[in-house]
């Protein structure tokens, strides 16, 4: 029995270096992504990450056109494009009557179209698929360092700016009335989201990168009413989904990125059913208290 479990759970990682690198990369992403996702849901910007992941694409494409399938070039390109879109959308929402989500919607769609146009003008369909859907099993040493470095940077930034980020999300008017520069926290936060997407695009692809950020985050919100606990639950669920997804992809020869996201989906489904904020708890009517 134990030997059987060992063969299923441990052997794939023990005997294959590429699986170990994939695991390390996925775990680094699992630690950094869910807190960002939870903050996004709290800002009622759950779909924002999706939009931003599209915004990163033209930069990745430019990097690809200039240097081929080079990770640093595509990462820097993605980062620059993401920041440009965030800054432009932020500027439009501050200087015009458009709200942030509206100005971002307009900006990212144009960015996405530009990206697809650039890639399809030069590359092949295979390249496009690789960029859109990623390949976690092809993570090399450099890619791993990039992911781990960005994840570390995000955690340090989150810890440093935590109180301000929280206040800017919870009660931006209070912060503004105190003379605080709310847009600074907002831009720093969006920078973190872009960084996270850039780190994740190689493993999961730009389209799936959002999944590891949002799905565990949304599930975590069902488990607790305390933000700190939500962060921890989110990370735990993301780790679970990453390990399960990699094992699934190994044993059943599935595409790794989607396998991780589908695993996250299963974790989310279970949370919807059994978490304290989920369906079963609503179904079980417990007797009310005296006061």
């Amino acid at each position: 029995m134990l030997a059987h479990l060992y063969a299923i759970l441990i052997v794939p990682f023990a005997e294959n270096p590429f699986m170990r690198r994939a695991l390390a990369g996925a775990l680094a992403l699992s630690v950094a992504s869910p807190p960002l996702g939870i903050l996004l849901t709290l800002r009622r910007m759950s779909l924002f990450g999706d939009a931003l992941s599209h915004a990163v694409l033209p930069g990745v494409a430019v990097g690809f056109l200039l240097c081929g399938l080079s990770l640093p070039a595509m990462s820097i390109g993605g980062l620059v494009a993401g920041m440009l879109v965030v800054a432009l959308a932020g500027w439009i929402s501050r200087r015009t009557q458009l709200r942030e989500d509206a100005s971002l919607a307009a900006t990212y769609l144009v960015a996405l179209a530009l990206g697809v146009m650039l890639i399809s003008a030069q590359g092949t369909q295979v390249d496009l698929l690789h960029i859109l859907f990623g390949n976690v099993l092809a993570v090399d040493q450099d890619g791993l360092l990039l992911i781990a470095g960005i994840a570390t940077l995000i955690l340090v930034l989150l810890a440093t700016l935590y109180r301000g980020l929280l206040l800017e999300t919870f009660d931006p008017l209070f912060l503004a009335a105190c003379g605080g520069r709310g847009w600074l926290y907002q831009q720093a936060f969006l920078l973190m989201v872009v960084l996270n997407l850039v780190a994740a695009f190689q493993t999961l692809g730009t389209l799936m990168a959002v999944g590891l950020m949002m799905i565990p985050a949304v599930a975590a919100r069902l488990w607790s009413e305390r933000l700190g606990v939500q962060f921890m639950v989110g990370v735990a669920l993301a780790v679970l989904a990453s390990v399960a997804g990699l094992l699934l992809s190994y044993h059943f020869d599935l595409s790794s990125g989607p396998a991780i996201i589908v695993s996250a989906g299963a974790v989310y489904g279970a949370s919807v059913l059994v978490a304290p904020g989920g369906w079963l708890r609503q179904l079980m009517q417990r007797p009310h208290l005296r006061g």
Partner: protein
Amino acid sequence: MSATVGGGVDAMAGTMISLHDLTVSYRRHPAVHHLSGSFARGSLTALVGPNGAGKSTLLKSLLGLVPIEHGSVLLGVERQHIAYLPQRSEIDRSFPLSVLDCVLLGHWQRNGLHAGISAEARQAAVQALATVGLGGFEGRALGTLSGGQFQRVLFARILLQDAQLILLDEPFAAVDEPTIDALMALILRWQAEGRTTIAVLHDFDLVRGRFPQTLLLARKLLAWGATAEVLTPENMRRMRATVAAWDEHAPVCNTEGED
């Protein structure tokens, strides 16, 4: 009407806020129109007027939250000594934050991003909660509070801010009588402590009973001074007459300030 102060900070000795020909517009339509006057230091003023009269806009312009199109606002107090209670509709109460944490945000102006919360600061927050009648609520999630209880939490946060100038935007909207009494007692205590308070209100009986000063605003200034002299039948009639006056094709305003 109070005297208009147009000079520098020197002229601000007994004055907390001085407005000079203040105009704030949305899409070229003035929300606050050529408003001049001053709030005395330590005064307690009710800001009344119909919906859309520019009351919230006036408070926001004092804080620099909306761009001032014309004229000036002079504040006799530094930014970190101002407390502001926004209209409740602008805060998300489902945020996963405990009541105590929310109150502790009142230390933001002194503690900023990194300073730790001392035992005294925490004690002050617990004390503030007890003062607003929410002793024992420290660990509750904000989402479990009623509207009135949440309003008390926000007052507790203001207590912690220890501000010299307190701006309250409709503090009693959808709040029951006992809560109004409790919060009103706090406002009167602030006045006794020499703090300056401006509150947007719709309950004229409350204003007549408790607020010494009243500013009656209907985009332009209707009356400003002692409450009994402001809330006269004549002024109330003028206020109602201006309520529905919205001119989509209003001509450009050429007035070069009217004091």
